[in-house]
Structures are given as C-alpha cells and as structure tokens.
C-alpha cells in the first residue's frame, strides 16, 4: 500500500495555502477565545428556560483555592464555555441542519416529525422503573377510604403516530403501556386509559399535542377530561359550552429548544372559558417550616403574563407548584377532587374545575403525606395524573 501518512508533497505544496490555513486556524481559535471573554455574560437562556453559568468569581483566594482543588472550578469553567460560547444559538442550529442534511430523522433525541412537529423520542422502557413507581403510588393512594383513579397522559410519540416518520417502531410505546396496565392490575387503583381515546382522535386528524412542546394541547386535555368523566362517572361539559380563544401563536416549546430546528414554525395556545360565565379562584400555597400559607390568589386559570416569556405553557395555572387549590366562586356546595399531578394537569384543570373544586398536589415539590391530606379534608376521590415520561423514566417521590 502507498504510504498514506506522508505529508503533502513539497513541490505541489502551496505556500499561499499554508499561510491561509495558519491564518484561519489562528483567527478562529483566538477570535472565539477573546470574544467569549469580551461579550458580556448572559445570565439566563430563554430558549432553554434555565440560568446560565457566568464566569466564576470568588470572594477571596482561599475560596478559590478550595474550589480549584476540589475540581469545582474546572467544572464551572467547562459549563461557562458551554453556556456563554459566542453565536451559541447559530451553532446549535448548524448542528441540527447538518443532521437533516445527513437524512437523520432526529437530533438530540427529538424526532423531526411530519407537519413541522418535533417529538421527543423514547426508546424501550425500563419496566422496573414503571413497576417501582406504580407500587409507590399504590401504597400512597390505597386504603384511604375514598376511590382512587389513575390516568397516565401519553407522550407525543405514544399518540401522534400520524406525525411519526414512516416505519417508526411502536413497540417501545406499547411496551410502556402494557407494563403500566400489568402492574396496575394488582392494585385497587382504577386505571383510566387515555391513550386509546387520544390515539383515536389523533388518527382522525385532530391536532391534540403541541408540535414544538411535549405537552398536550388544550384540545387534547379536553378529550382526556371526557375520558376521565366517563370513568369517574360525572357529566362532562360539551365543546359548545366553551368559548375558545387563541391567546398566542408564537409558542416555541421544549422539544423545539432541544432539537435546535430553527426552521420549525411556532405553536399556538388556546384557552377555554365556559360560556355560562362561571368564575374561578386559584390559591397557590407556599410552605415554610411545614406550614402552608396562601402565597398568591389567581383570578381564573390563566396567567397572561407568562405569554410574554419563553415558557408560555406556564400560562396554565402560572406553572407548577407543590399545592394549589381551585374553587368556583359560587354558593353551591361542590365536591372536591384531590389530584396528584404533573404539568399536563395544568391545562386539564380548566375542564375538571367545571365539575369539581380541586386540590392539586405536585409530588415533585410536595413533601408531606397523601394520607394526611385525605384525613384532614373532605375529598370525594383521588385522581393521580402523571405522564408516561415521568412514570417510566424517573423516581416518583410520593408517600
């Protein structure tokens, strides 16, 4: 074989080329190095909805020494470069474009779906995680003297098969829900199957999930509400009993941020208000030293101020809190439903609240026991509504 590692032959070597390569290399390496320090640090990334690492500073030399020798300083510098790199957004976009050019159907585990959708890809579930979570939920919710229900909002991949690329494997979704149902069969909790109902709607061509976010749209939440009504046994409001309004058409959600697919168009968010003029109050609780106080009371379900931020899904109930109570402003006596929730429930509440007063507990933030809540209040039933991403992918903290 020819010696392939020999340098470029000298007679053909272009002096101009050598100078140009050297210049470009030095310019790029030094240019970005200087730019990152000159450009003022950004404290927050809207696209990612998180704080960024700024250049680490220390009050005195011993604090620095300690940080340096523990490796903490190195970690912070590494994060600093990752978070503050010049033209970061453009680079992320270039990466996504490259994947697309390579005919790759996903980037950073987000699928480039049909109709401009961006869908988080989930692989085969870890059945043990599902088992452990259901066991914990069952332990916390059973034997409390009131009926317990569970519904698991599917992930976009589980229902929007119309958006998925051709030949997309269904087994991972199916296996997750099979494992869920198998495990629930041994419990006293009644399972409300949302996936079949939502799949049917999606297959009929209805857009029930956001294209650029992992949540369901208000319409999807409405169909889930009907399914819950059928199972618990109350009469749901009909679609014509709501007035629907598009409150924003510039919503770029979580999957958009992750995919770096800058060519995708934004989503819109719809609000549903009952036409009978019912009004609702939302109390957000704050806990300090185990004691809860009302931190804030919202007039209605929607927080308009969130529509001007990146995280526009927080329009529903102003985001996620440990403990939230929703009441209809009325003299009539209403039953109260205890809901163990995640963020999917935020857009479900405007519907459920038409039939019940609601207490929402978010187990990711609430540290007390469910049995204590049930003992100290008057609840007609418990509904656990935590989406499949959490049930199959993380440790649900519930007691």
């Amino acid at each position, binding site marked *: *074989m020819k010696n392939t590692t020999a340098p*470029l032959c000298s007679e053909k070597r272009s002096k101009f080329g050598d100078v140009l390569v050297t210049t470009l290399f030095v310019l790029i*390496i*030094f240019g970005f190095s200087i730019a990152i320090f000159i450009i003022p640090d950004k404290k927050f990334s809207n696209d990612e909805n998180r704080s960024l690492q700024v250049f680490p500073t220390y009050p005195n030399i011993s604090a620095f020494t300690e940080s340096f020798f523990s*490796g903490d300083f*190195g970690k912070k510098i590494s994060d600093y*470069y990752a978070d503050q790199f010049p033209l970061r957004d453009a*680079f992320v976009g270039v990466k996504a474009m490259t994947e697309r050019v390579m005919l790759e159907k996903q980037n950073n585990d987000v699928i480039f779906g049909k109709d401009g959708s961006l869908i988080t890809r989930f692989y085969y579930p870890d059945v043990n995680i599902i088992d452990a979570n259901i066991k914990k939920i069952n332990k916390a919710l059973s034997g409390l003297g009131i009926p317990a229900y569970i519904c698991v909002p599917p992930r976009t991949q589980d229902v929007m098969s119309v958006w998925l690329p051709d030949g997309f*494997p269904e087994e991972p979704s199916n296996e997750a829900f099979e494992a869920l149902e198998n495990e629930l069969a041994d419990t006293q909790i009644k399972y409300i199957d949302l996936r079949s109902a939502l799949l049917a709607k999606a297959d009929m061509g209805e857009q029930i999930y956001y294209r650029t976010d992992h949540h369901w749209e208000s319409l999807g939440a409405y169909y889930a509400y009907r399914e819950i009504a059928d199972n618990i046994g109350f009469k749901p409001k009909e679609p014509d009993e709501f007035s629907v309004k598009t409150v924003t058409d510039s919503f770029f959600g979580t999957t958009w941020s992750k995919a770096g697919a800058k060519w995708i168009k934004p989503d819109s968010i719809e609000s549903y208000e009952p036409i009978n003029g019912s009004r609702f109050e939302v109390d957000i609780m704050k806990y300090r030293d185990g004691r809860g106080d009302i931190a804030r009371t919202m007039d209605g379900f929607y927080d308009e101020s969130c529509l001007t931020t990146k995280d526009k899904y927080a329009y529903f109930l102003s985001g996620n809190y440990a403990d939230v109570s929703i009441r209809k402003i009325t003299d009539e006596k209403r039953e109260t439903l205890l809901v163990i929730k995640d963020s999917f429930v935020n857009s479900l509440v405007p519907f459920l609240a038409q039939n019940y007063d609601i207490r929402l507990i978010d187990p990711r933030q609430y540290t007390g026991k469910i049995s204590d809540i049930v003992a100290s209040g008057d609840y007609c039933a418990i509904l656990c509504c935590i989406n499949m991403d959490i049930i199959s992918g993380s440790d649900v903290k519930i007691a």
Partner: protein
Amino acid sequence: MVFSSLEFLFGYLPISLALYFLVPFKYRNFIIFAVSLAFYGWGEPVYIALMAATIVIDYTCGYFIDKYRANKRLAKKILILSIVLNLGILGFFKYCDFFIVNLSKIAFLSFLKPIGLPLPIGISFYTFQIMSYTIDVYRGEGGVQKNIISFGAYVTLFPQLIAGPIVRYKDIDSQLNSREHSVALFADGARRCVAGLAKKVLLANTAGELFKMYQTIPSDSLSTVGAWTGILFYTFQIYFDFSAYSDMAIGMGKMMGFTFLENFNYPYISKSITDFWRRWHISLSVWFRDYVYIPLGGSRKGTLNTYRNLFIVWFLTGFWHGANWNYIIWGLYFFVLLVIEKAFLLKKLEKLPEFVGHIYALFFIIMGWLIFVFEDTAAGMEYFKNMFGSAGFINSQAVYDLVRTLPLLIVLSLASTPYPKRIYYRLYDRFPSFRSAAPILTAAVLLLSVAFLVDSGFNPFLYLIF
C-alpha cells in the same frame, strides 16, 4: 481536560501556543513543561505532586545509569529500581482495587475493601513513556537528558500526555534540544489537528451516542440486526475516538516542531489479526515489542518460548487497557488468534481471495470489541446472544434505526479507509483551485466541529479511563 472540549480549544490551546511562540527557543521547553503541568493538573490538581515525583525519580535514575555505565551491575540495579518504582506507582493507582476486589472473594480475606482512588489521567500512557527513557539510556539508545526542564517537557508534553502516542525517548531525544518551526509545519499541524477534532466530534461522538442507544434496548427486544448495528457503531466509535486523539496529538506536536510517530494506519482494512495489530495503536505494540517481547527472547528461542513470550505480551496488553477481567480476556483472545495465524492460518489466508481475509479480520475485531466494551461479562454474554438471534433476526426498531443512520454508517465506513485522503491528495495535486479552496474547507470543518461541541454536553473521552 480533553482536546475535544471548548475550554481546551478556546482557552488552553491559544494561551499555550501564544506563550510558546512569544518566548525565545531556549525557554520553549520550559513553557511546554509549565503549560503541560497545568493541563495535567486541571482535573486532579493533587496529582501534579505524583507527576513531579515520577519526573524526579526517573531523571535521577537516568542520570546515575549514565554515570555508572561502566559498572554494568550497578547500572542494571538502578534501572531495575526505576522500573520497580514506575510499575509500583502504576500498580498502586490502577490495579490495587482490582486485586483487592478479587482477593476479598476468598473467604478469610473478605474484610478487604477497595480504596476507590481516582485514576491519575494518562498514567498508563506516561508511565510507559517514562520507562522507555531509563531503558533507552541504559541500552545506550538514547542520550541522557541532563536538563530536568527538558526532561519534564518530554514526560508531560501535553499533546500526547494522556492518550498517546507513546513516544519512546530515543525517537524524540534530539528534537528536545533542537527543532524547527515554520509556517508550513504549523499549517500541516493545524490541518491534522482539525482532521482529528472532526473525527472525534463529528464521527466518534455521534457513533458513541448511537451505541449507547443500542445498549439501552432490553435484551428481549434487541434483534440480530440491531445488535450488529450497535456493535458496529462501537467499532467505529473506538477507532475514531482513539485515532482522533493521536491525530490531534501529532498535529499539535507539529505546530510546536515535534514529529511523533504515527499511531494508527487504517486498522479496519486489515487482512488478518496480525495485520490489525500492526495498524492499531502502533506505539503500544512497538513498546511491548521493544521492552517486553524482545528482551524475553522474542521468537529466537524455540517455538515453545515464542508462544510463552506472546502469551506474556498479550496478557499484559489486555491488562494495560484496564484493571478488569474482560480486558485480560480481550488480550488473551488476541493471543489465541495470533498464535493460530502464526501456526497456519496466515498461509491459508494468503491463498484465498483478499475479501475473505477482510471479512475474517473484521469479524474477529468486532467480536474483540464486544469483549472489550462490556466490563460486566454477563451483560456482554447477553449481547453476544442477541447478535446471534436470541431475540429474533430483525424488528421494526432495528430497521428504522438502521435506515435513519445509514448515511452516517456509509460516511464512517469510508472514513475508515485511505480513500478520503487519497482523493484529497489527488484533488490537491491536480487542481490549483482546490489548493486555494482547501484552507476554507479546513476552517469550515473546524467550525462545524465547534457547532457539534457547542450543541452537545455529550463528550466523554473514552481513553481517559486508562
């Protein structure tokens, strides 16, 4: 710090290069020594002390070996002392827990508990490198280095400190004292460095993420096609990862006027396992040949001794890669294959069409990586069964993920052959316009690699564990 990180490329590297070129030549080794220590200490500052001790020990031993050269027995004693100390340090930091864990399985030793020391970065590489110094001095193949700064620069030389190539002292002896710097060399170095970065960031990391994805598939859903695709991605990951590091090392060495020997020569176009080991991690094979195999007598003392020597070399090669049984098995696996080839297979293969040799070699290389990648041998066995159909031949996931990554697989396969470089040279030789455009291409590849780096926090460097 790893080369393929933003803080290296846009912090450490420009500062080091600027310091290096701003000072007159006689201070440049000192700059190399200083910035290399900073590079080494970045992750684990306390280990700088370990590095300093190692340098002092071997500097001193080298000095006295040279001084008492006339007294063969004394010189040999000093050499043995330095070897024992170096291997002792390596053994303590890298292999202590392995022995503790295995000994604690014996009933009356069950009280033994692993120490859990973090492995000093690159210790396997630089220990071998530094041992070559005292041995070369003893053999008279390399001159003694009287300047401790230059000696420190040799040991810590940041381009190849943590993942090779393992530079033998005799290969670099004269370069330490005088070397050339030029725009042409710097340009070659920059080209090589960018090529390495692209291999690591665009190819190895992407392949690595895909292999990781295949590893998450439960064994009852991993079809034959899926399992083979997965291990194929690992096969590409480890080659592009490791050879990229050598490319960047060679490239940065060139920028500073050093010439390191090549470490990889398209290993996946091998026609036999013997051929593979002449092309894979060449500096390690050469080290074992020069410092273990030949001193043991090599192949000159009869068939039986030859096999014994090969056994020792391959056991050590495996064990060098990691303190775990799977690495030992991996080394001995190659011992068996190489012995079979030596005994008769190579001659048989020569008579067969070339493609038979390629397929044979690739098959056993891939099976080797299977042993290599699973430290948990039970998990490795599961994967092995999946490769041969324990969960069916094919399923929709395997088809879907194979189709979507097919263009990448084609790129990876082509990039494993000499063709891209040959085409590049041909274009370069034939078209003056390409000669002018090539630098733009290099810059574009550099920026694209930066885009991938910025995009992803996923940047584990495989060879950091050694």
